[in-house]
C-alpha cells in the first residue's frame, strides 16, 4: 500500500517515474499551448482554419488523457502516482524546484474534466463565435487557458501550480474582457484581475512559507515532512492557501468578481467560470490535504467560508433576472458545497471532487444551454424577456432540463448522488453545518426551478423582433453529450469507485456510523428540494412574470392581488422576509463587499493624487525631504538603540 503519515490517514506523495504512455504527459499541456502560440503569433494568416486547430488540440489532449487514464486503471492501486521531470526550473544550493508533472488519480480526473468538457466547449464555440471577426484570437485565448489549467492540475510542486494559477488568471482576464467594445466587460476583467491578486497574495505567501519551512515546494517533500512542522505554521499555511482558493473559486469574501465575469462570451462562462477554473480552489484544498489535515483550525475556517458561500450564492441565484448571473450565483453556491466537502477532511475530499466533476458536467451544460437560448434571443440575457422557449428550442430545452434535474438533485441524476454525499458527510460532522447544507439544497431547488420556469415555460414575453430558433448542431451536440453526462455522472459512485480511486491521494476515512441512516438523509434532502421546487412553482410558475422587475410600489399592488389567491400567509411568512433578505444581501454584495474591494484602489488613487503634489518640481523641496529622511533615519536608529 501507499505510504501514510504516522497516525493520520493522509498518504504521502511518493510517485514513480513516468514510462510508457505516461511519458507523453508533457504533451497534454504542450498541445493546447502550441495551439495558443500558433493562433496568437500566427496572426491573421491563421484566421481561416484557426478555430478548427484550436478545437482539435484539446481533443488531442483529451485522447491522451483518456489513454493515460485507462493505463492508470491498469496499474496496481499503490502505483498510481507518476511523475515526469521536465526540467529543473531553479536550482541553487540544495534547493531544487523542478518543472515536474505529477499524474495521480486526482489529476487524472481533472485532466479528463478539463480536456473533455474543454473540448466540447471548444466545439460549441465554433458555432457560437461563428460571426465574431476575432474568433481566431478567442480560440487562442481558450487554448492558452486550457494549457494553464492543465499545468495547474499537473504540477508536482506549488510553484508550478502557481504558474498555472497565474496563467488561468491571465487567460480569464483576457477572455472576460474579450468583447472590449463593452466598457462593462473591461471593468469586469479588471475587477476579476484585482480580486484574484488578493487571493494570489495568499498563494505566494503560502509558497514562500512552504519554502522556508520545508526547503522545498514539492508535494512529495512537503507531504513527507508535514508532520514535523508546528501546528501554528500549518494553520497559517492552511489559511493562506484558503485565501488563494477563495480568490480563484469566488468564495466569500472574494466572490464579487464572478457575477461581473459573466460579461465574457458564454462559452467562457461555461468553461472557466463554471466547470474548471473556479474549481481550482477546491483542487488546491484537496491537493493540500496534508496541510489541512494537520491544521484543524484552518479546516474549520474552510467549512465556515464554504457554508457562507453556499448560502450567499444561492440567495443571489434567487434574486437575479439575468440568466447568466443567476447561474453564476448558483456556481458560487455549488462551489461552496465542494469547499464544504473539502473542509470536512478525509471523509469529504472524494465527495468534493465527485461533486466538482458532476457540477462540471451539468453546469457547463446549463451555461451552454443558456448561451444557446441567448443565441436564439438576440443575446438578451433577461429572463423576464424569455418564457415558453421550450417550443422554439426543443433540444436546448431538453438538455437544459437534464442539467436542471441534476443540479437540484433529482433522484438518479448525477447531482443527486454527489450533493447527497456531501450533505450526509456534513450532517455526520456537525448538524448545524449539515442543516445549512440542506437549506442550501432547498434554495437550489427554488432558484433553479424559477430559472427553468421563467425561461422555458409560461407565456411568451419576447421582444418584438426576436424569433427564437434552435442552434446549429455544432452547438447542440456538445449540449447533448453534456446532458448525457449530467444524467449518468452518478455512476462514478457505483461501488464507491471514486472514493477508492482517490484514496491514494486523499486517504481513507475511518469508518464511522452516521447519526442518521444514509437513506433517511437522502429522503430528507429530496423532501427539502421538493419544497423548494414547489415554492418556486407557486411563486413563479403559477403567476404571470412581469416583463419589468417589480418595483416596491408595484409590490404593494401585487401583494393585494395575492390576497385574492389566498396566499397571504405564504407572502408574509416566506416572500416578504425572503425578499427583504434578498435585497439586503444584494445590497451587501453590491456596496459592502464591492465597496471594500473597490475602495482599496480608490484609496490608492486618492493617496496618489495627494502624494504626487509633494513632487512639486522644486529642488529645495526635494532637499527638504532628504533632510527629513535623514532625521527620520537617524532618529529611528537612536530610538531602536534606546529600547
Amino acid at each position: 500500500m501507499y505510504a501514510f503519515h504516522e497516525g493520520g490517514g493522509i498518504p504521502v506523495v511518493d510517485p514513480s517515474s513516468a514510462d510508457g504512455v505516461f511519458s507523453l504527459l508533457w504533451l497534454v499541456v504542450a498541445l493546447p499551448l502550441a495551439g495558443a502560440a500558433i493562433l496568437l503569433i500566427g496572426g491573421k494568416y491563421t484566421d481561416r482554419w484557426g478555430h478548427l486547430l484550436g478545437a482539435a488540440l484539446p481533443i488531442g489532449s483529451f485522447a491522451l488523457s483518456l489513454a493515460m487514464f485507462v493505463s492508470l486503471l491498469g496499474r496496481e492501486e499503490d502505483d498510481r502516482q507518476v511523475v515526469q521531470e521536465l526540467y529543473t526550473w531553479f536550482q541553487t544550493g540544495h534547493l531544487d524546484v523542478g518543472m515536474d508533472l505529477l499524474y495521480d488519480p486526482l489529476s487524472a480526473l481533472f485532466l479528463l474534466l478539463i480536456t473533455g468538457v474543454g473540448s466540447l466547449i471548444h466545439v460549441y464555440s465554433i458555432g457560437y463565435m461563428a460571426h465574431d471577426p476575432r474568433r481566431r484570437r478567442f480560440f487562442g485565448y481558450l487554448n492558452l487557458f486550457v494549457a494553464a489549467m492543465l499545468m495547474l492540475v499537473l504540477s508536482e510542486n506549488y510553484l508550478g501550480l502557481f504558474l498555472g494559477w497565474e496563467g488561468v488568471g491571465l487567460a480569464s482576464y483576457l477572455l472576460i474582457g474579450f468583447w472590449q467594445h463593452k466598457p462593462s466587460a473591461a471593468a469586469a476583467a479588471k475587477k476579476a484581475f484585482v480580486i484574484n491578486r488578493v487571493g494570489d497574495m495568499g498563494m505566494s505567501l503560502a509558497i514562500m512559507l512552504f519554502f522556508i519551512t520545508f526547503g522545498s515546494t514539492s508535494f512529495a517533500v512537503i507531504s513527507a515532512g508535514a508532520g514535523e512542522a508546528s501546528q501554528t505554521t500549518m494553520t497559517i499555511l492552511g489559511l493562506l492557501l484558503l485565501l488563494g482558493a477563495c480568490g480563484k473559486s469566488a468564495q466569500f469574501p472574494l466572490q464579487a468578481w464572478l457575477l461581473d465575469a459573466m460579461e465574457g462570451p458564454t462559452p467562457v462562462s461555461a468553461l472557466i467560470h463554471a466547470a474548471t477554473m473556479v474549481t481550482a480552489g477546491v483542487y488546491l484544498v484537496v491537493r493540500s490535504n496534508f496541510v489541512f489535515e494537520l491544521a484543524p483550525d484552518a479546516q474549520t475556517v474552510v467549512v465556515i467560508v464554504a457554508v457562507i458561500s453556499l448560502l450567499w450564492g444561492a440567495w443571489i441565484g434567487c434574486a437575479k433576472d439575468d440568466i447568466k448571473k443567476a447561474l453564476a450565483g448558483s456556481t458560487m453556491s455549488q462551489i461552496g458545497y465542494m469547499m464544504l466537502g473539502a473542509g470536512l477532511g478525509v471523509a469529504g475530499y472524494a465527495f468534493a471532487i465527485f461533486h466538482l466533476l458532476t457540477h462540471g458536467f451539468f453546469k457547463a451544460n446549463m451555461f451552454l444551454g443558456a448561451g444557446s437560448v441567448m443565441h436564439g434571443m438576440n443575446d438578451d440575457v433577461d429572463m423576464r424577456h424569455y418564457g415558453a422557449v421550450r417550443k422554439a428550442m426543443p433540444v436546448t430545452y431538453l438538455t437544459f432540463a437534464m442539467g436542471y434535474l441534476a443540479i437540484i438533485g433529482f433522484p438518479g441524476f448525477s447531482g443527486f448522488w454527489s450533493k447527497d454525499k456531501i450533505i450526509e458527510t456534513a450532517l455526520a460532522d456537525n448538524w448545524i453545518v449539515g442543516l445549512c447544507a440542506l437549506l442550501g439544497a432547498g434554495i437550489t431547488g427554488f432558484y433553479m426551478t424559477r430559472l427553468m420556469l421563467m425561461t422555458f415555460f409560461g407565456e411568451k414575453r419576447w421582444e418584438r423582433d426576436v424569433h427564437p430558433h434552435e442552434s446549429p448542431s455544432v452547438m447542440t451536440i456538445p449540449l447533448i453529450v453534456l446532458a448525457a453526462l449530467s444524467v449518468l455522472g452518478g455512476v462514478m459512485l457505483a461501488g464507491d469507485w471514486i472514493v477508492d480511486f482517490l484514496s491514494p491521494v486523499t486517504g481513507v476515512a475511518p469508518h464511522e456510523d452516521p447519526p442518521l441512516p444514509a437513506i433517511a438523509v437522502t429522503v430528507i434532502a429530496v423532501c427539502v428540494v421538493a419544497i423548494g421546487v414547489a415554492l418556486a412553482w407557486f411563486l413563479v410558475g403559477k403567476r404571470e412574470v412581469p416583463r419589468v422587475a417589480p418595483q416596491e410600489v408595484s409590490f404593494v399592488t401585487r401583494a393585494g392581488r395575492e390576497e385574492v389567491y389566498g396566499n397571504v400567509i405564504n407572502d408574509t411568512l416566506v416572500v416578504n422576509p425572503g425578499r427583504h433578505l434578498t435585497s439586503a444581501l444584494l445590497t451587501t454584495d453590491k456596496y459592502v463587499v464591492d465597496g471594500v474591494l473597490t475602495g482599496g484602489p480608490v484609496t490608492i488613487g486618492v493617496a496618489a493624487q495627494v502624494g504626487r503634489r509633494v513632487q512639486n518640481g522644486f529642488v529645495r523641496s526635494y532637499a527638504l525631504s532628504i533632510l527629513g529622511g535623514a532625521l527620520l533615519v537617524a532618529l529611528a536608529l537612536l530610538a531602536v538603540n534606546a529600547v
Partner: protein
Amino acid sequence: MVAFWILAPIMVIAALGILFVRKAVHAALLLAVVMMSLAVLYLALEAPFLFAVQIIVYTGAILMLFLFVLMLVGVDASDSVVETIRGQRAFAIAGGVGLGVLLVTGLGQITLGTAVGLDDANAPGNIQALANILFSRYVFAFETTSALLITAAVGAMVLAHRERLTPKAGQPERAAQRMQDYAEKGAHLGPLPPPGVYARHNAVDTPALLPDGTAAESSVSRVLAARGTVRSAPALADDIEEIEHQIGWAPHAGRDAAPPASTTEEAPATGGEH
C-alpha cells in the same frame, strides 16, 4: 584652544550670514571668512598641511571659481526674501533646528576623553607622514581622483566650450564683404558716424545730428536702440535750455522736433560677428 573660542563665534556668525545676506557675492565673502577661520583651526588641530591646502585650494581656487561664476551671472543679482514655496521656510527651519539639536546634543554628550594627539603620527613631519599614507595605503583612491579631475575638465568643456563652426573672417574678408555690400545694397562704406553731441552725460545714447539737423540713427549702438534707451537730441535741448537759463544765457530757439530715434534699420556691419 584660544584660537577656537575666538574663531568659532566668528565662523558661526559668518555661516549664519550666508543664510541671510541677499547678495550672492556677500555670501561668497562670508564663506571665505569661514574657510579662512577653518584653516586656522586646522593649524590648531595639528594639520599644517591642510592649513595650507585649505587656503590655497579651497579659498584660493574653489572660492575664486565661485566668485568668477558670480561675475558671469551678474554680481548685482540678489535674492528676493519672499519665500515662494509654501511651507518651505517653516519646514526648513524646523528641520534645521531638528538636525542642529540632534547633532549638537548627540555630539556634545559623547565622551571622547583625552585626544591621543598627533605627535607620534606627525613625528616625521606632517607632510611626510601624510605623503607616506597617501602614496601607499590610499594610492588607489588618489589615482582615482584623477578620474574626477578629468571628468570635471571634460564636463566643463562639453557644457561651456562652443566650437567654431564657420571659419573666422579675417580683415581682408571683411573689407571685401564691405565693398560687396556697398556695391549690391549701397551700404555705407566708411566708418559709422560717432554718436553724441551734447556731452552732458553718457552721450553714446544720443544720436549725432546730420547737417540738416536730423538724427543720424546709425550713430548709436543697435543694442541701445533695441532697448529703446536712445534719447533724441531735441529732447535734450530742453535740458540745455534750463541750464542756459540757470547760468543766465539767452533762451535758445528750439529746433523742430526730430522723430525719436527708433532705429529699426540695420546698421552696416559694425565689425565683429553676431
